[in-house]
């Protein structure tokens, strides 16, 4: 029987983290300060993921760091962050406002990942996201994401250091992303976030040079959604842990592509550029109405149904 209007349950749970709805703020967007994290949560996100935080303050790359494109955003911001010691204050601001916060961390080796993650966990976050795949920070991320052994090693080191769930975020810039998800699961990961940005470049013909100061960047937005949906579909077939889908979620239907591919939650980033913070409310409303139309009573019922 079809549920009456407005009765679709959007609540979900990822590795024990309860969410009022399946949307999360993606790392890298409006998430360097407690005030912004809280504002996004209050705008309707089910959880907010912080900017990727490392052991020390880092300024990131010089500008230009972003290029606006037709169907997405190219960025090479270069992991700017105030360092974990300073960032604890920002997490506190968001937690005091009752936000569900997931702390994203990076490091240069297993010990650094583990120590930053331990401090992040102490600040009270609900889970840790491992940025294993930032494709444009020199010496950080890329190499890590492109070796299954490193994914295993860093996931295990962080798992041993914290008591909260750990979600490695995987790069799509590999030939078989599902095998990386399997490596993470074997190392104890509690969930998988897929995908990070797709390595890309934009050139200004009039100036005969790449626009980004870093030359290379990561592409996000609707342009990469089919890549992300395929990655989640593949990962869902190979692992038993929950998957969080990210890449071009800008509507309820886009979110449901990920859910039906197997994601239990989705992350939203680039859509905020064109839609502002109302994106969260718009996405969750459309999810509820489409789910109702196709005969689901809850979002959880729809997880993975595209596998038939």
């Amino acid at each position: 029987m079809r549920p009456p209007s407005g009765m679709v349950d959007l609540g979900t749970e990822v590795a024990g983290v309860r969410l009022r709805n399946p949307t999360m703020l993606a790392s890298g967007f409006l998430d360097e300060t407690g005030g912004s994290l809280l504002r996004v949560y209050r705008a309707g996100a089910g959880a907010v993921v912080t900017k990727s935080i490392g052991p020390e303050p880092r300024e990131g790359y010089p500008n230009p760091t972003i290029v606006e494109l037709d169907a997405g955003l190219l960025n090479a911001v270069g992991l700017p962050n105030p360092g974990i010691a300073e960032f604890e204050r920002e997490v506190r601001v968001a937690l005091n406002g009752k936000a569900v916060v997931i702390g994203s961390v990076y490091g240069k080796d297993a010990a650094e990942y583990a120590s930053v993650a331990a401090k992040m966990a102490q600040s009270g976050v609900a889970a840790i996201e491992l940025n294993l795949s930032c494709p444009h920070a020199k010496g950080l991320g890329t190499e890590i994401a492109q070796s299954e052994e490193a994914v295993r090693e860093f996931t295990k080191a962080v798992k041993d250091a914290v008591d909260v769930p750990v979600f490695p975020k995987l790069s799509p810039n590999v030939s078989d992303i599902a095998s990386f998800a399997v490596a993470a699961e074997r190392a104890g990961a509690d969930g998988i976030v897929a995908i990070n940005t797709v390595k890309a470049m934009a050139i200004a013909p009039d100036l005969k040079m790449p626009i980004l100061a870093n030359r290379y960047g990561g592409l996000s937005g609707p342009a990469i959604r089919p890549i992300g949906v395929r990655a989640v579909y593949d990962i869902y077939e190979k692992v038993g842990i929950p998957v969080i889908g990210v890449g071009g979620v800008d509507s309820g239907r886009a979110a449901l592509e990920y859910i039906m591919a197997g994601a239990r939650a989705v992350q939203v980033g680039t859509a905020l550029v064109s839609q502002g913070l109302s994106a969260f409310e718009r996405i969750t409303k459309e999810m509820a109405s489409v789910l109702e139309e196709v005969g689901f009573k809850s979002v959880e019922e729809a997880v993975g149904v595209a596998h038939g």
Partner: protein
Amino acid sequence: MGKIQIVPLLEVVRESHHTNTYRFRADFGGAPGQFVMVWIPRQDELPMALSYLGPVKGITVHAYGDATKALMDFQPGDRIGVRGPYGNTFRLEGEKVLAVAGGTGMASIIAAIEAFAQQGAAVATAVGARTAAELLFVDRASASGEVHVATDDGSRGFSGFVPALAEKLLDKHTFDQVITCGPERMMKMVYDSAAKRGLKTQVSLERYMKCGIGICDACVLDDRLVCVDGPVFSGEQLAASEDFGAWRRDKSGRRVPI
């Protein structure tokens, strides 16, 4: 979205020994108070207020860092990248307006001064600079209303800081709106002067920015973003601010004193 446009400079005007105006055509609009992200190739990309609106736009830039110093050598025909316009605008409310500008802040406010005058408001401008040769757009402001000048060294007009001149003008005349742009501590003084008289204020703020489009969180003021919620903030918005006049974020996101 604001796609980057690579445009040739049409004209470069020397305003003072450290400040130039660069004119260019771009395929987008622009309203008083809005800004553009300007790519100085091989150097940097920076937020800059539109000092001229209309088909041939302009930015007026004080050379204070490596990129803006490199820009000083650009000639007509040299290309820059521009994207925008970004941010909100000055609201053209009020019949008797006092505009208070310090240094290059005049570049952010001159288009509003002209727009207020055009719609019939009486606009008085208090403009300050370190020395007479560094005063910006006195002629343009004079065409829109009376102008009062302050210089730190007394080389022209009132000898002292422009907030002190503004305080005198607020004592002597009746205004119903104060708009201001300049160094943030200067603006805080102007805001305080206006607030204690119960006057409506609009303040145009400046912060370090990476994106200009509301994602990087570098330009945060409390929980607002200078790039999309500003750069123009009302006195009411700033009344409860912890950051205004006191704190900003550095490139790594650390909260540091202004």
